[in-house]
């Protein structure tokens, strides 16, 4: 049984199609990353998956339950960390945690011990008496994420949960989620910070303008789509001389204007490198440093989106 199974899921607002017939399959225990730029349709999708909004068309099965027919049964088994902050301004950190536990039917003593553990895990113990309205944005965000672990769940949705967190808190959260995923929790994680998805997720889908452009493991996506490599050279010549020497090489994008450094993006690195070296030698330019980098998830993401935009306009 799949944790999430969505087929041809769409959401329309008037004439605008926010999500366009997407298919999603998430296996139990998987950390699934949902990548997209701002306005790509990530939040609309997560709102449909969490039953907050009803799809215009398509079918949706969450944890073996028809989510369109029995949304409450789904909501009883999922956790949701929304993109927007959610808090009770007048409650203290500790009170808001235990009250949230109560709202999920967690018995009092269990609720208190969970709150204690989570405040410690999320570095909130010193803030326990502080009211939510007196916290910084990052602290409030930590409370919001920690609070969601007050109740048991089979599937956790997180919609850009690291917004407002500093790098250390961000890494701590990702490590915490990784640990939870190891113990069997299924995670659906939306973000536009690609390094987070690369670090946490074992499966990724890229959405753009409401459509899923690619979906696979990060490694497979890199292999399949990461044709591009970036070659960086440092020479002893100036911009003008290097630009002139490397002008007109096909199948690559040469970026100069950075002093003695030149960046070359290409899908045929070996061939291009030979051509570049030959031209530099011919023009009497000596090379001081050379490096080549494989595509990152960010490169894949940008390339995928660029390809999609190109095929639309072309």
């Amino acid at each position: 049984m799949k944790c999430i199974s969505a087929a041809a899921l769409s959401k329309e607002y008037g004439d605008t199609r926010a999500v366009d017939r997407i298919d999603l399959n998430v296996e139990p225990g998987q950390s699934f990353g949902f990548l997209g730029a701002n306005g790509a349709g990530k939040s609309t999708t997560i709102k449909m998956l969490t039953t907050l909004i009803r799809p215009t068309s398509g079918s949706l099965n969450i944890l073996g339950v028809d989510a369109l027919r029995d949304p409450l049964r789904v909501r009883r088994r999922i956790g949701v960390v929304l993109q927007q902050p959610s808090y009770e301004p007048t409650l203290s950190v500790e009170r808001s945690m235990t009250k949230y536990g109560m709202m999920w039917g967690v018995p009092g003593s269990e609720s208190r011990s969970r709150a204690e553990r989570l405040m410690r895990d999320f570095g909130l113990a010193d803030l326990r008496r502080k009211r939510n309205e007196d916290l910084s944005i990052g602290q409030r965000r930590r409370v919001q994420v920690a609070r969601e672990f007050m109740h048991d769940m089979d599937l956790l949705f997180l919609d850009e949960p690291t917004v407002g967190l500093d790098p250390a808190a961000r890494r701590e959260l990702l490590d915490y989620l990784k640990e939870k995923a190891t113990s069997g929790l299924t995670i659906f994680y939306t973000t536009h910070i690609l390094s987070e998805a690369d670090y946490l997720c074992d499966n990724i889908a890229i959405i753009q303008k409401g459509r899923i452009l690619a979906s696979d493991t990060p490694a497979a996506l890199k292999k399949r789509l990461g044709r591009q490599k970036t070659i960086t050279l440092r020479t002893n010549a100036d911009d003008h001389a290097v630009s002139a020497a490397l002008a007109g090489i096909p199948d690559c994008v040469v970026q100069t204007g950075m002093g003695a450094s030149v960046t070359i993006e290409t899908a045929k690195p070996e061939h291009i490198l030979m051509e570049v070296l030959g031209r530099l030698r011919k023009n009497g330019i000596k090379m001081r440093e050379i490096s080549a980098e494989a595509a990152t998830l960010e490169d894949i993401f940008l390339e995928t989106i660029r390809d999609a935009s190109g095929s639309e306009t072309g």
Partner: protein
Amino acid sequence: MHPVLRLVNRNLTVSLNPGFLIWQVLFPLIYIFVVGFAYTSLIPGVTYNGEHVTYPAFLATGMIGFNIMNSTLVSGLIIWNDRRHGMFEQIMSGPYTRMQYVLANICTIGTVGMISAALIVGVGYPVFQESVEFTLYTIPLIVFASVTGSVLFGSLAAIISTRLTSSEGFNVVINTTFIFLAFASTAFYPAEGAPEGLGAVFYFNPLTYIVDAIRAGIFGGITPAVFVEMAALSAIAATLFVVAAKMMTKVDF
């Protein structure tokens, strides 16, 4: 615990903070003991049901209805605050239905209304105790008026909360509504002495019906007019509740 009770528990924790409770007592206390006694030189007394009632006693009984309106409008703001601080969406993504959320809010508002009425009865009792004519029939009338009034104003606040999105607009509407309902009613003065047109306006205001029923319950003198007012109050409360519930089910995320 039933989901509705869990939400009521949460709502009461959020609403009944010390600041709210102090305000709920302090505000009417100023009206009763400062305004009420200060105006005694201008208004020596009010004739109510053929009996002479001191102005502070008249005002104190009016303050019960006034405080129900004040507290329930404020606690009706739970919905507004939940929407503003993301808790409405958070709760709706949890193990609750919208109807449970609406019911929980109405129960919270009813409870706050009763607590508020009880506070003013306790605080104001020394002022109106000389004119009190409680009977076995009048106490249920007071409780019914308080609960129905709470539902009415709570639903009104819920409707306003669902319709408005900007803080400025919300504050203007809620304050204007509050001032109109408070002062165009019989809470502060009897309708009989007011200019004809204004006196008639009083009877388009549900706070008048609540205050009249509570006064009739405390000072005696339950007339057929009070029952008509109670019927009107119930009908308005039921209508506003249905409208509020409908609107809550349509709030989008």
